[in-house]
């Protein structure tokens, strides 16, 4: 009662009223920030004026005129905007494959570090400690200049790995499936199967929820999808996908898929490097599940697989996912080092466009906006997944 009286009375002058002060403080703060930004922009304008430049994105519609040797189908006669898009797709390509590889390496090494086998444990430990403490760029240069361009043989006498994979100084050649004419027919089955799988997933999930039983609706959906896709494969006349194997012709390989030296080096470097960090995260996550939990689960009568699935994994994942997200983001951002080993990612294409057009401000804005969007999308996706894991746990 008393305090109410004091605040409502007009005895406090406005310059000592905390509410007024807070508003004034914030307005002042914003003014200072705005003045700083205005100063920078003003300088920018003056500098551009003296250089006879202006800001605008019309140059994106001009012909790019430089070659990009990999990624989407592209001609030097295409416009700058498309060239930049090719760069973005290349970044996403190396980031997605890198994330998958790094996760596999990370899980294997992380589990190996907890192995009961002394030798395996030590090996995994050495891998993590060596890789984590050497700069990524040194590792990338090592993979690119030393391994890909120096240690590997010329195309003529390539190193053959089982499964007709060829390692050469010009890149890596792997067998690859290419679409034939009947591919589009098969795609109908695939899309239909996907739709049906989603329906099955939703139905099964609501059913399980109503019955309050744990289960794997995703397994049901996956089964439906695979069945329909397989059925479609046999129902379509002719094989929708044909496997082509790289074959050495006169000077080079034909058929199969060509992975450029810089792509391979970048992929190896990024996944080996990030894998070491993920291994530590996985190890910490598994160690974070207390022994009592596992013992209690066993005491209740759960089987080994059930203990892992229902008790250990949900709790470990809760610890693992947030740092894992930041590792995925790191990998995506680190893929920008591609520019230093000549892979055409968005940073590389962006700086090339800058060199051709001299549009510094616009290109930097575009590059940063692209990375920010990718970071945002990844963290949104992982946050969604994280929230789901939390719900499962409760």
């Amino acid at each position, binding site marked *: 009662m008393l305090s109410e009286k004091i605040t409502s009375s007009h005895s406090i002058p406005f310059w000592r009223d905390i509410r007024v002060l807070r508003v004034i403080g914030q307005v002042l703060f914003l003014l200072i920030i705005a003045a700083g930004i205005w100063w920078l922009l003003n300088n920018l304008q003056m500098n551009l004026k003296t250089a006879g430049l202006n800001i605008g994105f019309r140059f994106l519609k001009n012909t790019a005129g430089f070659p990009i040797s990999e990624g989407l189908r592209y001609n030097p006669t295409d416009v700058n905007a498309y060239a930049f898009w090719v760069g973005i797709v290349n970044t996403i390509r190396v980031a997605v494959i890198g994330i998958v590889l790094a996760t596999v390496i990370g899980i294997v090494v992380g589990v190996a570090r907890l192995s009961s086998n002394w*030798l395996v444990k030590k090996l995994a430990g050495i891998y993590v400690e060596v890789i984590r403490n*050497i700069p990524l*760029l040194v590792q990338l240069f090592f993979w690119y200049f030393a391994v890909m361009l120096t240690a590997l043989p010329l195309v003529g006498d390539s190193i053959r790995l089982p499964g007709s994979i060829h390692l050469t100084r010009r890149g890596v050649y792997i067998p690859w499936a290419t679409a034939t004419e009947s591919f589009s027919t098969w795609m109908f089955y695939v899309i239909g199967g996907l739709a049906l799988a989603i329906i099955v997933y939703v139905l099964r999930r609501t059913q399980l929820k109503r019955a309050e039983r744990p289960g794997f609706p995703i397994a049901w959906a996956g089964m439906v999808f695979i069945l329909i896709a397989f059925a479609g494969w046999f129902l379509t006349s002719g094989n929708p996908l044909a496997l082509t194997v790289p074959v050495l012709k006169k000077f080079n390989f034909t058929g199969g898929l060509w992975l450029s030296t810089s792509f391979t080096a970048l992929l190896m470097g990024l996944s080996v490097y990030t894998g070491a960090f993920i291994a530590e995260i996985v190890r910490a996550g598994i160690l974070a599940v207390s022994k009592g939990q596992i013992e209690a689960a066993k005491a209740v009568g759960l089987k080994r697989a059930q203990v892992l699935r229902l008790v250990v994994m949900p709790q470990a994942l809760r610890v693992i996912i947030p740092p894992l997200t930041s590792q995925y983001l790191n990998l995506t951002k680190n893929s920008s*080092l591609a520019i230093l080993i000549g892979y055409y990612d968005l940073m590389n294409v962006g700086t090339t466009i800058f060199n051709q057009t001299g549009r510094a401000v616009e290109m930097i804005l575009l*590059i940063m906006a692209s*990375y920010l969007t990718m970071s945002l999308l990844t963290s949104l996706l992982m946050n969604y997944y994280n929230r789901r894991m939390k719900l499962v746990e409760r």
Partner: protein
Amino acid sequence: MNDNQQIVHTVKEQLRPPIERIPVFRWLKENLFSSWLNVILTVVSTALIVTVVFGLLKWALGARWEVIPANLKLLLVGTYPVEYLWRVWTTGYMIAFLLGFSGGSHGGLMRRVSTTAALISIVLAVLPFPWGTRGWLVGIAVAAAVGFGLGYLGKGIRWCKRLEIAAWILSFPISLVLLNGVGGILPVIGRRTTWGFLLNLIGAVVGIGLSFPIGVLLALGRRSELPAVRWVCTAYIEIIRGVPLISLLFMASIMLQLLLPANIRPDLLIRAMMTVTAFSAAYMAENVRGGLQAIPRGQYEAASAVGLNKALITILIILPQALRLVIPAIVGQFISLFMDTTLFGFIAILELLNITRSIMGNIEWRGTIFELYVFIGIVFWILCYSMSYISRRMEKTLGVGER
């Protein structure tokens, strides 16, 4: 209280379990051949180790290692003028002296770090360097020893401790002035030279040192009750953390001069340092925020119950505790920033990694690519691994995980 601790100690000591002597055979069976799967794993990893080690040995014995000593000066300090090299050594002496002083007065981890540094310099002095270099190296150990002695004498004296902290803080600008020079007194080195590995060190130290105050302010701003402050700080942190360092360096190399008035045209090195500071500040802010979040609410409540206002609570109660907690995280950040300085090569600054290109361009050293990269890898590995070891030890002594 002291007595109680003593008692606890002795009880612990008495109850220490007896060391079990495990026969070799049993150890092997338990750790390598406990199951069929383990047998297979052991065989596979032994094969792996044998191939890798043999391959490495075969290569290392035939490698042209002479490329390293022949270019050592270029790699480490670039084209830093030989007549001014004493300035680099003097900086080293100062750091060694301070390390020794702290080691002498604190003991524990600090003592081990300073003795290790002195030992390393003695070991290096035994290696076949030119006699002048050997003399300087011995000097490092001497400086550390003198510092150690003084620190040991000054142990527990209050003003000694204050002097130590002040000296550490002052060593930062003094080193920069010594290394780069200052108009009128010491000739300025600046961009007349390529700095080599020295630049990686300076870049990381400057980045962490300058970003620390900014990072603390940003962290406080992000936790502020004023929405405007909070939004601006959060936006800065998230934008910087969302883009790769290389894009910021690109911006520094081509766009920063467009944002400044026509009469201010900072040198490329300065711009690189500004970028590293701006970049590192965002990560520093997140580290400090982690520390701030670890402080229990009771601390705030108790401090305000005593009658402190918000600013005083932050400065006197919260920050001292929070910053102590984040020291290991800052060391971790230093390590990654140190490794990130290799990216300077992207904007044509000749740091350690980029300087190797000019060596490989030399016809005499063609084909020494493996040797150079392995050398760089080893240099970084030794420094980063020892720093991360120190930070892990610190985590234990500071008891970060125990809150």
